[in-house]
């Protein structure tokens, strides 16, 4: 059984509507949760000793909440900047794989591809998935625009002390993230091959969480695709 055999696979994802507006609409429910975490990141970064501008610059360049919280918590606990950067970079290592999956959708000259690549985050990549297995370019850009404004804007509000000190966890907003990814996983649970890969990915990630540094379990879950490729 070679990999080529499964290329004309049945549509794994229902047809999605394309376009910038559709992407923005699809990710809009998450903008509130992202903003709540951006706000608290801004506040936490200040208490960890960063200047407000440094906090905003971090959100603008890293654009990945979990890695930023990880780096800040290392700093706040007295860890070195090298360890903080290492922890955050490891959490973001999955973007090397996610970027590979998004690459066919990101056409244009190298400088444009470089910029578009920065728009690929878990949520924008997930809502842009199509039945062809390649994210839709316009949905990805539309979704990323909403997420970026929400993430960087709310960090600024928190870092400059303009917002109330909020605790997103009291509102249950941390549970919004697994719920979003579950909802986007739904179409894949209907076919045996993709269901097998999803279960294997979940088992790998859970099994590695206690033994590997944060971030590595998600990256390693990419290995679950080998099960799907080798099986009929």
């Amino acid at each position, binding site marked *: 059984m070679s990999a080529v055999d499964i290329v004309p696979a049945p549509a794994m994802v229902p047809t999605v509507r394309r376009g910038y507006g559709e992407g923005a609409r699809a990710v809009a429910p998450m903008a509130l949760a992202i903003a709540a975490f951006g706000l608290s990141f801004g506040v936490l970064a200040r208490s960890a000793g960063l200047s407000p501008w440094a906090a905003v610059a971090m959100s603008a360049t890293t654009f990945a909440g979990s890695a930023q919280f990880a780096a800040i918590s290392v700093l706040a606990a007295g860890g070195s900047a090298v360890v903080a950067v290492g922890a955050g970079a490891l959490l973001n290592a999955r*973007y090397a794989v996610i970027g590979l999956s998004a690459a*066919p959708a990101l056409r244009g000259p190298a400088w444009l591809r470089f910029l578009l690549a920065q728009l*690929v985050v878990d949520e924008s990549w997930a809502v842009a998935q199509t039945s062809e297995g390649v994210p839709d370019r316009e949905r990805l850009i539309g979704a990323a625009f909403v997420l970026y404004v929400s993430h960087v804007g709310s960090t600024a509000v928190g870092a400059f002390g303009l917002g109330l000190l909020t605790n997103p966890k009291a509102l*249950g907003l*941390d*549970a919004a993230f*697994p719920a979003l*990814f579950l909802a986007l996983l739904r179409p894949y649970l209907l076919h045996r091959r993709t*269901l097998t890969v999803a279960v294997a990915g979940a088992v790998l990630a859970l099994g590695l969480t206690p033994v590997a540094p944060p971030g590595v379990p998600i990256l390693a879950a990419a290995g679950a695709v080998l099960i799907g490729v080798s099986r009929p």
Partner: protein
Amino acid sequence: MIGLGLATVAIKAVGPVLLGGRQLPPQVLAPVRLLAPALLAALVVTQAFGSGRDLALDARAAGLAAAVAALLLRAPILVIIASAAVATALVRMFA
């Protein structure tokens, strides 16, 4: 912390800069298509049960259960997300 920004920018750029816009050959496309279910499932479980280097069964599990229920009732995505947040907030309030 600018180091983390630079590292992330570089990590994200690798794939799209090297082969952006190109159609992937079939042998590569097949596993790449399967990345979505693998990574989405990993994100679900790590964000629902992960707590640093530990696994935790806390209020987020109630949120995930509510999301599963909403999913089975074929609720729209906004309702799935909202039920997870509300269930988790309620458990935290009363637990």
